[in-house]
């Protein structure tokens, strides 16, 4: 008997009598603007917010936000940057990226999270090897809470997807919060209509 069959047989023998699956939840959430709630939650999780440039020049905005950046690599056609992703052979090649740029699919008001998949990153390490990440978010694409987020069911057919909430962080030494643990050091959300 294979281990698989042995384990499954023992589970079937030992399973307690069946209990029902409760209905999917639907909670209302607090009143007020989803956008304002998103902004508050993002700030709490260590994320930054930038208004879109009046002249629409996103490359100019990024140059102003990161004046010392050498390598700027964009996964969205809305920003040019100076490193092209389609020349990448290995995910490790993004090790020297100073600023990555990506467009989020949607945001979550409750937590300040962004939903991003392999389709947005194109190379997944862009969201983790880059020192800083700038994410464009359409303010019309903010859902109420995590229940609503997981109802965007087709999104979860992506090979990889992540709710990213602020930059990478750790508090493993004496509970002191440090932004920029192993992944991105800062996350800047730019509210720009798609």
């Amino acid at each position, binding site marked *: 008997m294979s281990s698989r069959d042995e384990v499954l047989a023992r589970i079937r023998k030992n399973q307690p009598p069946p209990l029902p699956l409760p209905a999917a939840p639907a909670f209302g959430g607090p009143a007020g603007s989803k956008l304002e709630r998103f902004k508050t939650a993002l700030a709490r999780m260590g994320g930054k917010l930038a208004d879109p440039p009046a002249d629409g020049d996103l490359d100019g905005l990024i140059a102003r936000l990161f004046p010392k950046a050498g390598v700027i690599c964009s996964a969205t056609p809305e920003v040019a940057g100076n490193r092209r992703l389609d020349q990448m052979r290995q995910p490790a090649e993004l090790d020297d990226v100073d600023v990555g740029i990506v467009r989020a699919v949607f945001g979550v008001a409750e937590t300040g999270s962004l939903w991003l998949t392999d389709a947005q990153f194109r190379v997944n390490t862009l969201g983790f090897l880059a020192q800083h990440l700038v994410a464009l978010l359409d303010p019309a694409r903010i859902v109420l809470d995590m229940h609503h987020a997981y109802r965007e069911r087709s999104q979860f057919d992506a090979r990889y*997807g*992540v709710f990213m909430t602020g930059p990478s*962080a750790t508090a493993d030494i004496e509970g002191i919060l440090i932004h920029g643990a192993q992944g991105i050091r800062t996350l800047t959300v730019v509210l720009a209509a798609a």
Partner: protein
Amino acid sequence: MSMKRIDHAEASSKFIKAKDHLDFHDKRLWDLRTKRDREAEGMPEWEDLRALASAIKEHTLTHLADYLEEFERNAIANGAQVHWAKDAAEHNQIVVDIMRSRGARTLVKAKSMLTDECDMRPFLENRGIEVMETDLGERIQQLDDEPPSHIVVPAVHKLRGDVARVFSETIGTDAKNSDVHYLAESQRQHTRPYFLRADAGMTGANFAVAETGTVVVCTNEGNADLSVHLPKLYIASIGIEKVIPKIEHLGVFVRMLSRSALGSPITQLTSHFRAPRDGTEMHIVLVDNGRSERLGMPDFWYSLKCIRCGACMNTCPVYRRSGGLSYGATYSGPIGVIIDPTFNLRKYSSLPFASTLNGSCTSVCPVKINIHEQIYKWRQIIAERHQLPFVKKEAMQIAGKILANPRMYRAAVGTAGTGIDLLPRFMMYNKLNAWGKQREVPKAPDKTFRQWYLENRAKKRGKR
């Protein structure tokens, strides 16, 4: 792993002697508990979510075989390879076989309690595989050759000076510099080359979704994603109880996990690994290691609902003041107390006594495990099977006889003057008794309640 019986009280005495560490540990964990309360109280639906989370888990566990088969089917359809391990030894062998057959010699891994439970690291290292823990707390513990002391914050029992010492001795930091930012940045710089050149990456799982075959990992540091997205080989080790039916159920659990663990609304990263990227492999190892047996234990199967948030540890006065290492097990604190005896009743027979039975663990548990009731039930089993340490057993037998007989009780209490002197002093304060050891038992009142009652109320009524 040693089979020697763990003496929790004896092991904790070392921790208690280091006063700075004890005070900080107590304060830090209570701070997490306070932050958790703020989150829970800020959500009107919190109790509804607990009930839902509990019911979803109970439903899944009572249909576990079907959901595991569904998960396996979908994972294979996604292009992942699924392996089954009946115990820790088989899990470790599967991992080493996958790596060897692909010529992989280095492994970067995210934190996984399951791989600690399986004692995987030394097994791989003894077979020539370099294993790099990439979570900061877990890495500190690896470099100090200690197991994690907490399931969420592995090095919470250490102060910055301890970390400075460990890092200076192992990764070459300045021994005199214990600045926390410097230490964390040093680990970041030290770890990054390993991510870039590792042959394989590994994570555990917080949830495994049957409907889609997705592995969900909740982290803060970015190390899990780096471990998966760089190497050509990804291995996920998953306890069979981590499966949940549908994507929509993640909403319930993700909303509660980090709020219960750290008091933050969500982890910085909630990652969903469904399928390997082009040109890479994804392997999933489903591990039993005692879980299917536990499922058949009428009182104790509820512990399989656990989502490993650590809230019960943070709130437990015994855990906060004895430290996770004193439990001598992968799982410490209240959840450890009820899980560990299922692995080895004799070895962990003292753990169910490391509790005041105050019930706080039960009331903070996001999946409503009746932890303190299970602790009490373990005590009964241990007493029945004569696994009680000698002093606890003798004291309880004497107390049991006297408490069972009102006349003998009154005689004992009345003549001795205090209820506590019911037990001979040598029994209260000898070297082996955990309760008398770290504190003096409070002085009992001069009169017993019964004496006071007879003098005051009963006299006034003119009776007796």
